[in-house]
């Protein structure tokens, strides 16, 4: 058996490694993704003050500090048995929209988008944001930088610092908004709405009007029929900050809907020997291996998972786009992995529209932003991180210290599906042992669509995004190595 190893994956730190196993004809037999998992969080958390968790967990991941901050804060609301005042909830949600604006913008233009805007088979040196700017124009580049910074700024105004929010407290937030801040945010949000509309138009022009790309998007290697999961409001519309966890089946029908406090009754985790990552699945359906379909409990989260798990968007423009998405891609559920990119832009539009609703809400300047906490107990909190459902669960001692902590992060929820997407893409593009950089990028695209995040709080210099491909013959003897940036 030949083995091809991609190590690590370009544009993804944390030393991810894809191994592709070939049969004796040189076709793909299997592929697995191995990623280092940060370890020992439960032990690290034990004995610490519960109210420090929103700050500590915002450092777990350089990617989603805001998501961890509020999943932790909401778990503490529950653990201290307190319901925050409605103004505090709105302030938290507004800050959350700022996070989605900068995060989704970054992914589309810098990380996932280049594959389409510049082209999946473009040389790696061009297949990046610089290539995007060269193709779409400097003015587009300026827009991207400006609106990503607006998202950051909105988050920073509400959270203290964009990268280490300090505002979430059990029972509310530490800081409200004054009139000047409201006016600043209003201007930024209006501009962000236009930017989101522009981004969807760009996607239309560059991707959807290119038959070649649409064929790739709809092709079998990028199709995966799993369950889908996401938070929804009382009308089953997508919600990032709060609501119930809804799971739909491969045809878009509701399979189950539950409160986060019941997550452990609904979700179980499967362990494989070759990785630290645990693979969550729907307990009642069961683990059937890396398979899709109704009989397999694997589900997807993130932009596509959320859209599939809901019945629409709660704001008018985004809802219109939502309908167009399903009309164009053949109804519910959309099971093509590369549709994550389009779904992400629809969510960007929703985040901007929702931010506008919140900043225009008269209650947003209220100073009643915290309620007194009750006795410490046990609590779970859920938010939608940009890349999917995120759950924090804490059990406190009677003195308010952490006794037990458990987290299920977004990329872990997607781990089973990501593995399958990589395998299927590899099967689709690698034939008779022929591998080059363009082929490998087609494999990576399956993976990048999820916007995954692994062991991401480490950030040592210098790196260089190396890519190593090792091909072994079926006796596992190395006969060829391809490298990039090493």
């Amino acid at each position, binding site marked *: 058996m030949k083995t091809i190893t991609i190590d690590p994956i370009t*544009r*993804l*730190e*944390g030393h991810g490694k894809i191994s592709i196993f070939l049969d004796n004809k040189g076709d793909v037999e299997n592929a697995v993704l191995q990623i*280092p*998992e*940060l*370890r*020992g*969080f439960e*032990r*690290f958390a034990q004995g610490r003050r519960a109210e420090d968790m929103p700050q*500590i967990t915002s*450092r*777990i*991941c*350089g*990617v989603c*500090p805001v998501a961890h901050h509020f999943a932790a804060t909401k778990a503490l609301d529950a653990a201290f048995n307190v319901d925050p005042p409605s103004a505090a909830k709105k302030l938290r949600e507004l800050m959350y929209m700022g996070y989605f604006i900068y*995060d989704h913008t*970054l*992914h589309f233009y*810098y*990380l996932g988008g280049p594959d389409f805007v510049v082209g999946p088979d473009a040389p790696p040196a061009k297949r*990046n*944001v*610089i290539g995007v*700017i060269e193709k779409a124009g*400097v003015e587009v*580049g*300026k827009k991207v*930088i400006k609106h*990503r*910074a607006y998202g*950051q700024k909105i988050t920073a105004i509400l959270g203290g610092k*964009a*990268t*280490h929010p300090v505002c979430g407290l059990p029972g509310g937030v530490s800081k409200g908004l004054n009139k000047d801040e409201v006016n600043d945010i209003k201007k930024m949000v209006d501009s962000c709405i236009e930017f989101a509309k522009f981004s969807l138009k760009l996607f239309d022009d560059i991707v959807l009007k290119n038959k070649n790309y649409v064929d790739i998007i709809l092709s079998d290697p990028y199709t995966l029929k799993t369950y889908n999961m996401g938070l929804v409001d009382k009308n089953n519309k997508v919600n990032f900050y709060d609501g119930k966890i809804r799971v739909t089946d491969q045809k878009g029908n509701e399979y189950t809907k539950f409160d986060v406090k019941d997550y452990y009754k609904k979700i179980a985790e499967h362990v494989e020997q070759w990785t630290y990552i645990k693979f969550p699945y729907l307990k009642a359906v069961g683990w059937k291996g890396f398979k899709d379909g109704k009989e397999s409990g694997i589900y997807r989260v993130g932009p596509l998972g959320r859209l599939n798990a809901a019945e629409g968007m709660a704001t008018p423009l985004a809802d219109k786009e939502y309908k167009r998405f399903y009309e164009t891609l053949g109804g519910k559920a959309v099971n093509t992995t590369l549709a994550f990119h389009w779904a992400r832009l629809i969510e960007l539009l929703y985040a901007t529209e929702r931010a506008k609703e919140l900043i225009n809400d008269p209650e947003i300047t209220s100073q009643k932003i915290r309620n007194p906490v009750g006795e410490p107990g046990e609590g779970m909190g859920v938010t939608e991180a940009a890349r999917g459902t995120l759950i924090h669960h804490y059990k406190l001692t009677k003195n308010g210290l952490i006794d037990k902590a458990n987290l299920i992060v977004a990329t872990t929820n997607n781990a089973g599906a990501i593995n399958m997407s990589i395998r299927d893409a590899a099967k689709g593009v690698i034939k008779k042992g022929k591998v080059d950089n363009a082929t490998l990028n087609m494999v990576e695209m399956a993976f990048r669509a999820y*916007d*995954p*995040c*692994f*062991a*991401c*709080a*480490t*950030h*040592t*210099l*210098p*790196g*260089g*995004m190396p890519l190593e491909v090792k091909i072994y013959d079926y006796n596992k003897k190395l006969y060829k190595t391809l490298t990039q*940036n090493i």
Partner: protein
Amino acid sequence: MKTIILGVGNQILGDDGVGVHISNELKKYIKNPNVTIDEAVTGGMNLLDLILGYDKAIILDAVKSEKDKHGIVQRIPINDFKAMHSCNPHDVSLIEAIEIAKKMGENRIPKEIIIIGVMMKHISLEFNDKLSKKIAAAIPIAVKMTLDEIKNDMKISS
């Protein structure tokens, strides 16, 4: 000359947080109004945002290196890096971020960017808020190197 000293790292990931330990230590010695000391658990675009508008940036960070001795401290001009890891998979590297910003006509990029790096062969992926002995021993050396850097700048400008 306006300078920013930025301790970069994650204090809950053991040695990865050394940059922040160094910047905390420096706060005891530097009381110059033209020198700002800050910290960040971030990279790429966010890191660039933090250093815009300064004449010079000194970044204190862990540097992963196979060939250098574990725990030694080196002064590295940013141009010596071919590429820099960003702190996370969801961002571009600082060098890419600078390149993009230049293309967009950004004129607030510091003229000089220096890394004071603590070289490491490996970094644990286990949550821990303490430094290992070897890496903790690098702090006074990195502190002295940074103070010398600031002193030299002052001599040149005066």
